[in-house]
Structure formats: C-alpha cells, structure tokens
C-alpha cells in the first residue's frame, strides 16, 4: 500500500478531497481513520456516500487503519489517508503507519486554537503532535488544494506557534 497523501482535515471527506486531491492523485482507496465515525454505522454511511465512484472507501479506527497500512498482503494500492486532527495523524505514525509526509489541509478555528494560516489553527496538543512527527523524521506541509500555495512547516514555524521542538 502506498500512501499518496496523508492529510489532516477537520472536514474529513469533502470537496477539496474528493474533487481536488482525488482527481489529481487518483487513489484506489480513500482511508478515513477516526474512532468515533468507525464505531457509528450512520456516520460511516454518510461519509462513505461522498466518495467518488471507482474509489474504494474504508472508514476504520486508528488501530485498524495502522494494521491495514502495515499489512504486507495488501498489494500496491494507492491510498489517500485522512484524519480529522493532528494528534490522530501523529498516533498513526507513532504506531508504525508508513507515512513520510503529512499535509495539513484544514484545521479550522475553535476555542483555544491560534492562527498559523487562514486555514490552519493550532492548539497546544496540535503543536505537540507536530513536534512528535518532525522528531520522527516526517515532513510537514500545509496546502488546501492541488495547485494551491504550499507552505513547508519546520521547527522554526512551530516555535513561532509556541512549541519547543
């Protein structure tokens, strides 16, 4: 399994993903890793219904997603991996999911979050997750849609957000 895009987006499966990135990257499977949605058949059905035809969709818990991504028996499928938050993406990587690069696609404003970019707001838990991913050798970039501006995020940008890594 090759992860063609590992994206953090709190809108989960929506137009920027299904139209923007899926048309550009043509993944065979869209994998949403989210414990609450995976445990709820109704929410799973709503999100699965937004996926373009010819793209398989899996909505799995974090642990199940890691198992699938690490499974050597699963052929050379191209996967677009989604989480709704940075700590969840960091957990996937920490548990051994083969991810070298993480895309911050949309983390919207909510109480306690500070603006990094107009489409990325971070709180202390997010900054800690970013530090943990950088320490694991993962590169981080923020970009909403293909062809949009790409912002590379390293220790300096994260220090500016109040992180120490």
């Amino acid at each position, binding site marked *: 399994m090759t992860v063609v895009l590992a994206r953090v987006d*709190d*809108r*989960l*499966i*929506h*137009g920027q993903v*299904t*139209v923007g990135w899926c048309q550009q990257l043509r993944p065979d499977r869209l994998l949403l890793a989210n414990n609450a949605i995976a445990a709820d058949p*109704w*929410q799973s059905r*709503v*999100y699965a*219904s*937004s*996926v*373009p035809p010819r793209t398989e969709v899996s909505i799995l818990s974090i642990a199940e997603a890691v198992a699938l991504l690490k499974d050597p028996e699963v052929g050379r499928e191209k996967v677009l991996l989604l989480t*709704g938050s940075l700590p969840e993406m960091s957990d996937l990587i920490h548990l051994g999911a083969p991810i070298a690069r993480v895309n911050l696609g*949309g*983390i*919207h*404003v*909510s109480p306690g979050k500070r603006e990094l970019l107009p489409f990325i707001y971070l709180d202390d838990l997010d900054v800690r997750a970013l530090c943990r991913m950088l320490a694991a050798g993962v590169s981080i970039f923020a970009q909403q849609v293909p062809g949009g501006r790409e912002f590379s995020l390293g220790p300096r940008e994260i220090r500016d957000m109040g992180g120490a890594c």
Partner: protein
Amino acid sequence: MRGLVATHGGIGAELVEVVTMIMGPAEGLAGLSNHGKSASDLTVEIASWLRGDADPSASGMEPAIIFIDDYGGSCANAAQLACRPGDPVAVVSGVNLAMLLGFVTWREELDLDELVQRLIERGRTAITRLGPVS
C-alpha cells in the same frame, strides 16, 4: 415549513437575499456558509438551526428542508448528520433560484414529501438550454 440554504462560500445567503428581493420577506428561510468551519462545528450549527435555537419565529422542531449546493461536500455531510432519525427534515442537493422560489410559493400548501418532489422537478426544469442554436 422552514428552509436552510447551506452552501460553500456566500452562495446560500445570496440566494436567500435574491428570493426576498423577488418575493418579499421570507420568514424561516436562512442561508448558512461552511466558510472557516470544521465538519463538527457545521453539524452543530445546522442542528441548532433545526431546533430553532436562534429563530424567534420557530417553535421547536418544525418540518424543514435543508438545501445544499452539491452532494459529497461538507454541507451535505453536516446536513445529514445534523438530522436524527424521525426528524421531519429533508436534505435536497443542487439548490437553485427556481427551486427556492418554488419553496416560498408552495411551502404552506404541501406536506414535506410532496414539496420535496415538486421542488426537485422545479429545480430540474430550470436547467435548460435557451434560444435557437446560432
């Protein structure tokens, strides 16, 4: 019958504004943008509108239609997730001006299912090629 036009950007609010320019004030018809909102915030906001939290003209959970611009997007997901089983709510995608004018015209005459059927037909009829081919 109440209506919510939940869309990308400012499409919903603008459509509602144009409806009121043509038909006069439309009580219980509102626009809502997904701009800058997470899936969960958008779902909470739509659920709050369905309960009539901020609408003095609403009395609890009235029958309602949530119009969205396209399915497979954040508004479509949030609109479906904001409804609970048994709620008198329909979610209709592909909103256009003709559909909303029909909504304001017929919303007190028809029940929810009949109205939805009529509005989908009205919206589709409005999509047509005009004039002779030159």
